[in-house]
Structures are given as structure tokens and as C-alpha cells.
């Protein structure tokens, strides 16, 4: 689910965007904690970018909320470790990094991202794997919702133990079907000349 409409950018623009995102993340991680004012500036820059690209604030908040366990996890680890890292600075740093990634993800279509990755010479096998994963995520999600619906249509009793058992069997079935589909997809790739 994407929150805003995409336009088709030129490949050069996507490459610049990928490189820009990496630089911004490096900048955030390397900002010295003795100068917190820099975090403020980076935050303003990011919010400005999000506002400029018209990413709805609710969407950003929702994404942040989903990712917040990661921030909390690293902050907690810092609090109880003996390294002496301030957990507040660490939480701020991770939040800013996540905002950068959200800004990138919300303004880039997956097909453009893949094209950009190919252009910056990311190994083809990795890009192909990413592309296939993105393509079949939706097919598998559809398949699992169909299986769940079919299960619900014939579930007449309630009971936690039974529900868990059924969920496990749906997950297992989904795995088997995904494996079979992977084989068929590979056949289809070979049929159109994929070099083995």
C-alpha cells in the first residue's frame, strides 16, 4: 500500500535519489552527539522533503509506528549496555534514519528502485531476487487470503487451540504452494531463454 501517486522519473534521477539517501543516512549516523543542533537541521531537511513531495503526515506516522520497535530495541540496548552511548541520541538517530528511508520508499515505485539498483551495478542476481520477491509477495498474499477465507467458511467451532492448528496448516500449505510455484516460475523463465 502506497500513500501517494508516483510519477515516472528518469533513471538518472532514481540513481541520484538512491545515492542521496545513502549520503543522508551516513550523515545522520556520523553526526557527532556533542552537536545536537545538527540533528535538528537534518530533521527539518527531512520534514521539508516529505512536505515538498506531499507525503501525507498520517502515512509517515503510521510507518514510523510500525518501525518503532526497532528504535525502542536499539535504545533499550544502549541504555543497559556499558558503552556509555546516550539512548536518547541513539533513538533520535534511528528515527531520523527511518524517516529518510520512509521518504525514499514513499516517493519511489519499486520498478524504478530496481532499475536504479541495476544502474548502480548492484549484482544482477540480487536485483532479480528482489524483483521476484516483490512480484510474488502479492500473489502469495492473495493466495493466503483465499486459503484463510476458505478455512473460515468451513470453520464451525471456536477454540484457540484449533485456530492455532488451522493457522499452522495454512502456513504450511502456503509454503508448499510457494515452493511449487517457484518451480513453475523457473520453468517459465527457462522457457523464454533464461541462461541456467
Amino acid at each position, binding site marked *: 500500500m502506497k500513500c501517494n501517486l508516483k510519477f515516472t522519473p528518469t533513471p538518472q534521477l532514481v540513481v541520484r535519489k538512491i545515492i542521496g539517501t545513502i549520503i543522508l543516512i551516513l550523515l545522520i549516523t556520523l553526526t557527532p552527539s556533542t552537536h545536537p543542533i545538527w540533528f535538528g537541521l537534518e530533521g527539518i531537511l527531512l520534514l521539508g522533503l516529505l512536505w515538498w513531495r506531499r507525503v501525507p503526515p498520517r502515512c509517515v506516522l503510521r510507518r514510523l509506528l510500525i518501525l518503532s520497535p526497532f528504535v525502542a530495541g536499539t535504545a533499550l540496548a544502549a541504555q543497559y549496555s556499558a558503552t556509555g552511548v546516550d539512548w536518547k541520541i541513539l533513538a533520535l538517530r534511528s528515527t531520523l534514519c527511518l524517516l529518510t528511508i520512509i521518504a525514499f520508499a514513499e516517493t519511489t515505485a519499486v520498478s524504478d528502485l530496481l532499475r536504479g539498483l541495476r544502474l548502480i551495478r548492484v549484482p544482477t542476481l540480487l536485483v532479480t531476487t528482489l524483483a521476484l520477491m516483490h*512480484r510474488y509477495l502479492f500473489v502469495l498474499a492473495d493466495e493466503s487470503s483465499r486459503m484463510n477465507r476458505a478455512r473460515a467458511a468451513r470453520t464451525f467451532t471456536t477454540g484457540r487451540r484449533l485456530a492455532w492448528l488451522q493457522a499452522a496448516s495454512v502456513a504450511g500449505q502456503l509454503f508448499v504452494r510457494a515452493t511449487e510455484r517457484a518451480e513453475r*516460475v523457473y520453468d517459465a*523463465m527457462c522457457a523464454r531463454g533464461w541462461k541456467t
Partner: protein
Amino acid sequence: MKPAISVQGLSFCYPDGLAALTEISFQVARGECVGLLGPNGSGKSTLLRHLNGILPERLLGENGPIQIDGTPVTSLHLAELRRQIGLLFQDPDDQLFCSTVAEDVAFGPQQLGLTAEEIHQRVQAALQQVGLGDLAPRPPHHLSTGEKRRACLAGVLACDPSILVLDEPSSGLDPRGRRELITLLRQITATKLIATHDLELVVELCPRSLILDRGRIIADGPTTTLLNDEALMLAHGLERPHVLQHAHPHRGEPR
């Protein structure tokens, strides 16, 4: 003239011991359109996969059971063979594996090592041919089943195959999608082998049919003769199609 497809005594067992194909022999002449009929599990899909070289090593070789355009299917010729044979899979989601329709159609030509300009031309031509010119930048999961099927066909046609092998091309299509597919297939001049349950489609497109049941070829002959043989049809999980039973209100007598 050498036949486009020649199969002599092909047998195949799945690893669990299930005999999927037993002593299959038939030939398809160049430009012919042949229907491959049979009940579920009769071995139609297995047979089609063998034609494309997705088959075990032991069946490859100079004396192997399958010849395409007079050339035996060997591991040396596999790439050339796959260029010659376009295989349309039963489930379009298996075949559309790229993130956009245009990328998917370009997949075959890219594997052929064509230049960017040639690839672009082939993609445009194939999408125009199947009437999907506007959908090129769309991701496949946003297409309807009919559009997916046509996108798959575009991906196959972009490789410019001389033989088209289609596995249940009309399954899951609404009447309009099915009609469009039949019109499209009629325009394609390549040799065609169509495995299907859609008997009306076979009557329309294929002058000749093969009937496959339990991995064996039961009958091989003119479609109308075979499909009019009610006893034969019923014995192998099929039936006489309506188009052969009843007079058409405009066209008159049944075929």
C-alpha cells in the same frame, strides 16, 4: 518437408513412480493448428513441457524421442529450441515474473541478446498485437486475468517463435476475453499445439485433434470426426460439444 514437431515413443515417469506419459508418438506439420484434448491429469501439461526442453537429461540426445523442425532436442540446441517454441503456461502468474508488463515482454528478447532498440521494437510490436499497448508500465498484479493472459502471450510472441504451445489458454477467461483470445490466436500464423478442455475453442481453431488419456494417445484425427464420436468422448472424460450437437440459428446445420 520435415514436420515442425515429431515425437516418437516418448515415455516419462514422475519420481514417485507415476507413469505420466507412455509411448507417445505424433507429428505436427508446419503451420498446422492441433488441439490436445484429455481429462484432468491425462498428461497434457507434462507433454507440453517436454516439447520445450524442460525435460530430464536422459531424454536429450541425438536419438531422443523429440525432434523439432527435424533437429533432435539435445542440450546443445536447447537455447535455439526455446527460441523456436513459445510456451504459454496455464497460470499467467507463473509466467509474468517481472515488475512491469513491458519488462516481462522484454525478458525473452533480452535473453536472446538483442540490442536495446530491437528489444524496444519487439516489445511495442508484441503489446500492440495483443492490444495491450497502454498497459506497458503497469505491474502484472494490477491486470485482470484476461489482460494477464494476453500479456503472457505478448511475452511469448516477442521471442518470435515458429511454434506456439498453449496450455489451457482460455481457462478463467470471461466470454469476451475468450473471444478476443480466439481472434488473436487465429491471426497468429505459427504452428500451434493447444492443450485445453474448451472443446468449442478446439472446434473453432483446430482442424485436427489428439486425445490423450492416462498418458497415452487414444485418438488422432479430424476434430469434428473425433468430437462427434460420443462414445469416444464419454469414455475419456470429455463430451460432444454443443456446437456439434445443435444447429446454429444463423449458420444452420451443426458442423
